């Protein structure tokens, strides 16, 4: 019998704790497959965030460090500086990366740390139960803006790819959406390019993945995917923002 598809060896056998319809599982799979394809096995350290992906250290089949909230890029910096030939990645959500960890992500990018950051943008705080995120869309409901995000009261969403790509240090900045097979394939290609930038010691690489959170959005999985495809993409356009 010919094996045409199997689970990546860079994932452990631990069952994911993610909710039905959540796209963290797809994101994990893509990162794991890319790590395997670039031959990083046995030479990689991952950094998990605080948030829904806090248990990522149970899922990626490699040495892992669990960072405090928002500090994954600083932790990754520490690892990479003492192990410059090791592949180092951070996996962060929007509250972690674009709110409490804004300083760490911007400065790791500005320094051109040769790390790869995977940024899951689902426009909500998932782990804590659906509070407004820095990336929550205008009008989007959350438990701390129950009538929908009102810029007068709640401020405006932050576009991380656009922000990061203004800096000199990053050499690859891209945004994909995990909303259908074609876009998932594009996302994988971007993740692979990002890790190749690290392998070639080019500079800081960053991939944002627009992701679904049906549980905290109060949607069916189908509605959530449509929300990523239509509503989110109108604010967060897909594409490569920087490539050097």
């Amino acid at each position, binding site marked *: 019998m010919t094996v045409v598809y199997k689970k990546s060896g860079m994932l452990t056998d631990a069952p994911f704790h993610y909710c039905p319809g959540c796209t963290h599982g797809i994101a994990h799979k893509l990162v794991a497959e890319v790590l395997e394809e670039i031959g990083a*096995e046995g030479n990689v350290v991952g950094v998990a965030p605080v948030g829904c992906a806090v248990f990522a250290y149970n899922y990626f089949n*490699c040495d892992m*460090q669990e960072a405090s909230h928002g500090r994954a890029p*600083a932790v990754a910096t520490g*690892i990479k500086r003492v192990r410059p030939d090791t592949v180092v990645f951070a996996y962060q959500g929007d509250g972690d990366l674009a709110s409490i960890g804004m300083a760490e992500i911007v400065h790791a990018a500005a320094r051109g740390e040769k790390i790869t950051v995977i940024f899951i943008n689902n426009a909500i705080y998932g782990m804590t139960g659906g509070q407004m995120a820095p990336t929550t869309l205008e009008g989007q409901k959350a438990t701390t803006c129950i009538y929908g995000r009102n810029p007068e009261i709640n401020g405006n969403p932050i576009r991380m790819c656009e922000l990061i790509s203004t800096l000199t240090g990053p050499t690859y900045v891209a945004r994909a959406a995990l909303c259908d097979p074609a876009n998932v394939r594009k996302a994988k290609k971007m993740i692979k390019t990002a890790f190749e930038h690290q392998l070639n010691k080019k500079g800081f690489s960053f991939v944002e993945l627009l992701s679904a959170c049906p549980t905290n959005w109060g949607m069916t999985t189908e509605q959530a995917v449509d929300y990523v495809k239509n509503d989110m993409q109108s604010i967060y356009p897909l594409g490569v923002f920087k490539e050097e």
Partner: protein
Amino acid sequence: MKQLMKGNEAIAEAAVRGGCRAFFGYPITPQNEIPEYLSWRLYEVGGCFVQAESEVAAINMVYGAAGAGARAMTSSSSPGISLKQEGISYICCSRLPCVIVNMVRGGPGLGGIQPAQSDYFQATKGGGHGDYHMIVYGPNSVQECVDIMYDAFDVSEKYRVPVMILGDGMLGQIMEPVELPEFKDLSKLPRKAWATYGDNKGKDRQIINSLLIEPDVLERHNHLLFDTYKEIADNETMCEEYLCSDAEIVLTAYGTVARIAKSAVDILRSRGIKVGLLRPITLYPFPEKAFIKVAEQDCVKEFVCIELSMGQMIEDVKISTQMKKPVKFYGRVGGNVMTPEDIVKFVTEEDK
């Protein structure tokens, strides 16, 4: 051969010789000479230096580097150390060896930039959230800073507990002759089985983590930490006793203040007053046995605790002496430092 060095620079050089190969810090007075020195020095020995965007980032870089098996350290001063506390709590729970230097300045708040000892509680009682301690040293000279820093990584790695060197603005800025030790041979250090070198695969993979979500697991981990602290107390406690055997009054002080107190002891002795000095060198673990031993001497009538604070170490003195003798307090704050004569005056006038 002895050479004249500033406290901060001597600590930095001793760190390099003791095996430090990664430094992450953020500027704050009065410790800036440490990052300034290491910013060029570490690259001479194949190490790395990063000026972080904040103290918060710096301590998390230490977490990453120490977790990856390197000998990593940071330094700061009081407000900056406050910012590091969350990271220190994570480091302690994750059992990562590292060294943190605090050149204490007056507080609270932005406070001042002159010497103080007002971070004693923060340093010795935990400082951040949760039940934990660091191994805390209070050196009293540039040479003692060098000696403690030189062995700090060995001690920290032995117990997987971070070491804090608690100095003050004066110790960081003062210049004194020091003897620098030889470089430690890092090639002889064993591989750290728990570290994320990146080459551990499958079942051997390592996780640096402080999330222990099962109550029983977290409880066991707390007990493990405190079993380690007991072992440290048994093995590493350090204290200097000066003329205590016949003393009626025992001064107690640490760090820079202990040197001022020692001068006061000599002055008082020359006047025929029987005074001694008990100087804790480890502030955590506190040298409880040395204190109770002296407190139980019949000749001892009282203790005088002298600090650059409103009275912090005095609590440990009272606990350790089990209040067998009265403990008086003399302190200066705000960056003001007492003279030996101030102490002499306090002791003689209080005794009238």
